[in-house]
């Protein structure tokens, strides 16, 4: 038996269905690795091994008894701690929710539970998903499995570290401005942000409601497609949920892996690392990106540069819109109905208790964004900041719409740099925000975007981003699978096998 914790999820599903392994065996293999390695890695905020093994036993019993079980039954899974899970502690990385056990499941958690997946635990994250390094977690530092002195990306950094480090076969992340794609890129994973509205937000602790989407973080493109299909689809409990059939994604990934991209029109976004827009980008990232564009051409794609001038303003627009929505969303943490309450001594009134609770319960980045959002929404500044940012959002969407007249997908690096050292940007919010430069346009326009590994720079993973029109997520998977297959064939191994081949926690 090869090592179960390096087997991709699709293969695990096949082994489980064929009866070659049991869900208990797979689950125990992961729990053993979590016990041995998560003190150093810091990927999880909560692990309940007993509950996981109980679920696994039920799946094994059902399978042995001939009860119909789905293709995902028995495959372990990690959920970002922003996903509400019934009876399982959920903090969103914040002290204000420490110890809270939600009374219900998020729609995606319920769907994955019903599919028979085994919840290993909840993964670390930047507090309320605000950050690009997971250092804004109120609980612990998460390290990059490729180099323990470096960040795993964020805000879904616990999920990226868990999957890249072999402590989960796959995981769910959420992406508001890049929080699936950037951590996937810097840890060598596949990460996909679905079309806005195609995965239910019911039960995701809201950060910026017009941008938040949940999606898969996995070792392979096919795994991402399978996990995405399992969580997608209309949900009456989310009023922004799109009422259309679940997209066919795994089939797109399989077709893509055949490697024929003849006729595919690819646009390389000038404003994201192209001529005159290379400030802040690592040379190694740009080199891997250029090689991967050439690889697309060799697979038959027609490549041309595409200019999207409004993308230059995506970062300022995002850092007005997201904090504004956050300042409103986070008003629900008032110390009344759930979570922390501070200073309730019978003497202080509600206003004082609320201010003390929020002061103690929120970390610095959350406070900064609440204050910024409050400012951007305040009378006298609304038009110049929030209103203007929403108009820029329209311009960004128009740039995409214009591009789709000429190309099928747009591509760029996923993030301007490889993973940086822990601590390097914590005191400089602007430098931290720059990590999202390439991922923000797709977020603001609501279009799907995937990050797929495209090589190493300085011994660290680099991500390649593929963006597609709304509801054309299948194009992201098809192109990503073609790249993955071509690179795997040239390398003679999977991308993450390079990590397994070297000493733990040290960059080459």
């Amino acid at each position, binding site marked *: 038996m090869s090592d179960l914790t390096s087997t991709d999820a699709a293969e695990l599903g096949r082994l489980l269905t064929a009866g070659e392994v049991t869900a208990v065996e797979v689950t125990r293999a992961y729990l053993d690795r979590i016990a041995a390695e998560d003190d150093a890695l810091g990927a999880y905020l909560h692990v309940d091994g007993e509950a996981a093994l109980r679920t696994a036993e039920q799946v094994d019993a059902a399978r042995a008894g001939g009860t119909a079980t789905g293709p995902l039954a028995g495959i372990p899974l990690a959920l970002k701690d922003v996903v509400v899970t019934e009876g399982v502690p959920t903090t969103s990385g914040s002290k204000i929710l420490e110890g*809270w056990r939600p009374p219900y499941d998020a729609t995606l958690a319920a769907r994955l539970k019903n599919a028979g997946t085994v919840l290993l635990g909840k993964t670390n994250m930047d507090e309320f998903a605000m950050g690009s390094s997971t250092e804004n977690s109120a609980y612990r530092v998460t390290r990059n499995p490729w180099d323990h002195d470096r960040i795993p990306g964020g805000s879904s950094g616990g999920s990226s570290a868990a999957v890249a480090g072999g402590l989960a076969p796959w995981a769910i992340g959420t992406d508001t401005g890049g929080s699936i794609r950037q951590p996937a890129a810097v840890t060598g994973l596949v990460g996909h942000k679905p079309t806005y509205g195609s995965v239910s937000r019911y039960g995701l602790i809201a950060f910026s409601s017009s941008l938040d989407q949940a999606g898969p973080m996995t070792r392979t493109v096919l795994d991402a497609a399978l996990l995405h299909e399992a969580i997608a689809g209309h949900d009456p409990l989310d009023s*922004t949920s799109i009422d259309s059939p679940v997209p066919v994604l795994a089939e797109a990934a399989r077709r893509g892996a055949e490697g024929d991209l003849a006729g595919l029109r690819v646009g390389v976004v000038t404003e994201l690392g192209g001529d005159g827009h290379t400030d802040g980008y690592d040379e190694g990232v740009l080199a891997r990106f250029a090689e991967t564009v050439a690889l697309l051409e060799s697979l038959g794609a027609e490549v041309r540069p595409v200019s999207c001038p409004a993308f230059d303003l995506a970062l300022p627009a995002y850092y*007005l819109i997201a904090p504004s929505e956050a300042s409103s969303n986070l008003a629900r943490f008032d110390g009344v109905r759930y979570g922390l*309450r501070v200073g*309730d001594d019978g003497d202080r009134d509600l206003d004082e208790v*609320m201010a003390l609770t929020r*002061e103690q319960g929120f970390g610095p980045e959350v406070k900064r964004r609440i204050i910024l959002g409050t400012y951007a929404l305040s009378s006298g500044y609304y038009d110049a900041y929030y209103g*203007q940012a929403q108009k*820029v959002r329209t311009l960004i969407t128009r740039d995409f719409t214009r591009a789709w007249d000429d190309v099928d997908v747009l591509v760029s690096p996923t993030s301007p740099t490889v993973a940086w050292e822990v601590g390097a940007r914590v005191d400089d919010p602007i430098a931290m*925000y720059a990590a999202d430069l390439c991922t923000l346009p797709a977020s603001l326009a609501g279009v799907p975007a995937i990050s797929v590994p495209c090589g190493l720079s300085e011994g660290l993973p680099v991500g390649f981003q593929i963006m597609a029109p709304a509801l054309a997520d299948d194009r992201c998977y098809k192109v990503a699978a073609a790249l993955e297959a071509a690179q795997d064939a040239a390398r003679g191994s999977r991308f993450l096998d390079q990590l397994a081949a070297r000493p733990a926690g040290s960059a080459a």
Partner: protein
Amino acid sequence: MSTPSRKDRLTRDEVAHLAHLARLAVTDEELDLFAGQLGAVLDAVAQVGRADVADVPPTTHAVPMTNVFREDVARPSLPRDAVLAGAPAAEDGRIRVPRILGEGA
């Protein structure tokens, strides 16, 4: 719309006022830190003012938003005990809250 002309950074007093509006009892140290950091962030985000947006409508949502209705039928709520178990303080089957009105109100 032109770039907001804020050569002056967010003052400490402005940050204190915004924190109060947002119900954050920030400390003096935080006021010093945030005033500087938020000034830098504000300079960066003010670049949205560079865009020519004459006649450009705002986008509030990436997908078209329409009112969503459902049948007006009663559905089960969460069990009361399950909800109260997550509340910071409960009494007599209800969430207990700090007093809302001052003595003089």
